[in-house]
């Protein structure tokens, strides 16, 4: 086969990105994808800084949604406390950021610290869960309990200081630095537009990276673990270790999103680990379709946009709306809206599947 860049490179890239484990494998899908991404990148020219700022946070939530889709939808680990890791990442970023900004000049170390701390904390919890043979709904109960415990602890930190950061109890941590670009003395804090672009880029990279992961060797193993752990073990896979890795890395991704969120608002408080906060990502992922990536992305964006609008009407409406949507989707589209729409679309167009299998089997070189 010729390796001369151009179409060959695109074909190889598509080979990595596409497969039976993710939706959207047609050329039509990728044109649509490019249009959406293109629109994301011209959006700053079409709107005002306030809208841009709000959208940046939606993108952060979408990264959180992706992390939950992979651990729950694909791997079958019902992590009801993904926001505990989101919150841990946010607090870690805040504490390290505030403490070190004078020393390092930037927030790179704080981002790194947020990811490392959440990966380690989740690995510890995961180790006791998976090697203690805790499965199914008990994982949900335990992870939710961890989030709520985190909330209770943070609420009681009124006069607690770590490093240069005051945790502030219910009032939260204020004065968290914005994201910076570059390192050391050359660090530049990002403005609203630059931050928007950076987070948008991270979101697109996360989505594409997870597609590559899910269509790889490990993607198949994660699905297999979700479907039947015993069968998967008896095909030679170390199920507990793989669950631990999946749990910790997706928690790390949630912690990363938490760090972005703290940097975005220059603020974090304990509600991020509360019951409502823990439920909301579950709702996005369920409504969108938990064993897809595109579903949780669309649902997180749409539901957050609507929630923001409703919250200007009155305080209770958002939760009522989210609860109602959740119940209706679970009752009528248990697999989520996007899979339901795709199924309907395929029925109508007579398209059995959206994978272009135009005989990619090549003779060995």
């Amino acid at each position: 086969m010729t390796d001369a860049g151009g179409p060959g490179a695109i074909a190889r890239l598509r080979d990595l990105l596409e497969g039976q484990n993710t939706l959207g494998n047609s050329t039509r899908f990728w044109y649509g994808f490019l249009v959406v991404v293109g629109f994301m990148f011209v959006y700053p020219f079409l709107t005002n800084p306030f809208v841009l700022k709000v959208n940046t946070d939606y993108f952060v939530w979408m990264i959180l949604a992706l992390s939950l889709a992979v651990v729950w939808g694909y791997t079958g680990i019902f992590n009801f406390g993904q926001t505990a890791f989101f919150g841990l990442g946010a607090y870690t970023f805040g504490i390290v950021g505030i403490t070190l900004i004078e020393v390092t000049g930037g927030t790179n170390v704080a981002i790194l610290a947020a990811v490392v701390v959440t990966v380690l904390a989740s690995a510890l919890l995961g180790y006791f869960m998976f090697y203690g043979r805790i499965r199914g709904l008990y994982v949900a109960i335990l992870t939710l309990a961890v989030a709520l415990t985190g909330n209770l602890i943070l609420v009681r930190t009124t006069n607690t200081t770590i490093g240069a950061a005051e945790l502030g109890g219910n009032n939260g941590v204020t004065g968290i630095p914005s994201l910076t670009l570059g390192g050391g003395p050359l660090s530049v804090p990002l403005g609203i537009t630059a931050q928007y672009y950076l987070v948008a880029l991270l979101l697109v990279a996360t989505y594409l990276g997870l597609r590559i992961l899910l269509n790889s060797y490990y993607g198949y193993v994660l699905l297999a673990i979700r479907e039947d752990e015993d069968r998967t073990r008896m095909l030679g896979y170390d199920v507990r270790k793989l669950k631990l890795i999946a749990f910790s890395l997706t928690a790390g991704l949630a912690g990363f999103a938490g760090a972005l969120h703290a940097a975005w608002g220059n603020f974090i408080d304990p509600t991020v680990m509360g019951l409502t906060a823990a439920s909301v990502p579950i709702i996005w992922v369920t409504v969108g379709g938990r064993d897809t990536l595109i579903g949780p992305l669309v649902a997180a964006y749409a539901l957050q946009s609507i929630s923001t609008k409703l919250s200007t009407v009155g305080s209770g409406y958002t939760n009522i709306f989210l609860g109602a949507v959740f119940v209706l989707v679970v009752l009528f589209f248990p697999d989520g809206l996007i899979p339901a729409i795709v199924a309907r679309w395929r029925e109508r167009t007579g398209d059995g599947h959206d994978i272009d299998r135009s005989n990619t089997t090549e003779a060995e070189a």
Partner: protein
Amino acid sequence: MTTSQHGDERAILRTDGLTKRFGGLTAVDDISFRLPAGEIRCLIGPNGAGKSTFLKLVTGTHRPTEGTVHFDGEDITDLKPHVRVRRGMSLKFQRISTYRELTVEQNLRVATQRIHDGQDATRRIDELLDLIGLTAEREAVAGSLAHGDQQWLEIAMAMATEPKLLLLDEPTAGMTIEETRETGELIQDLVREGMSILVVEHDINLVRQVADRVTVLNQGSMLMEGTVAEVTGNEDVKRIYLGKQAEGTA
């Protein structure tokens, strides 16, 4: 005689004094068992005889209370199940354990990818699909297949790991007579390719078709071992297990 010694032959699987007690219940009682390489052995016995527990001790799902398990000359008593699989052992579960929500191809991909990658895996999947006659159902969801096809799919998944020893726990449960016969032919083909096979089976027709030798368990102990003719001719075996079927044979 409760054990038969094949000291000179290379045993792919050997258990010595294998015992499993659950509280006061002794599910497997001092079983010393040898399976020479290249043999098809059927393991029979009435419900509660200890067949399933014995298999679980072999695969490592249960740890024995006493005794050891040797696989291909190595003591594997302390190895975890997935490590045993990597040593060359594979199992088809008693209850159908395909990945019901995944497609036939995804099922086989999970089973093959540890050994083959890329185009190799695709070629191997094609071969397996051809072998079990499910090429047309490649993109069908496994849970939507007919019962017998699901059984075959799982047998194909167990084979896909390219084991030295294939353990089949009631592979023909719920199959038609014709499907059972075809399964028997498949098992015989596998042995010709060099596998050793241990089958837990209730269907005496399949036992007659494939077994080189038969091991009979009763109440956790090994009752006897022998050829199909020896076992079906044995009065004790007739009494505990084969009574009805044995009368029906010419």
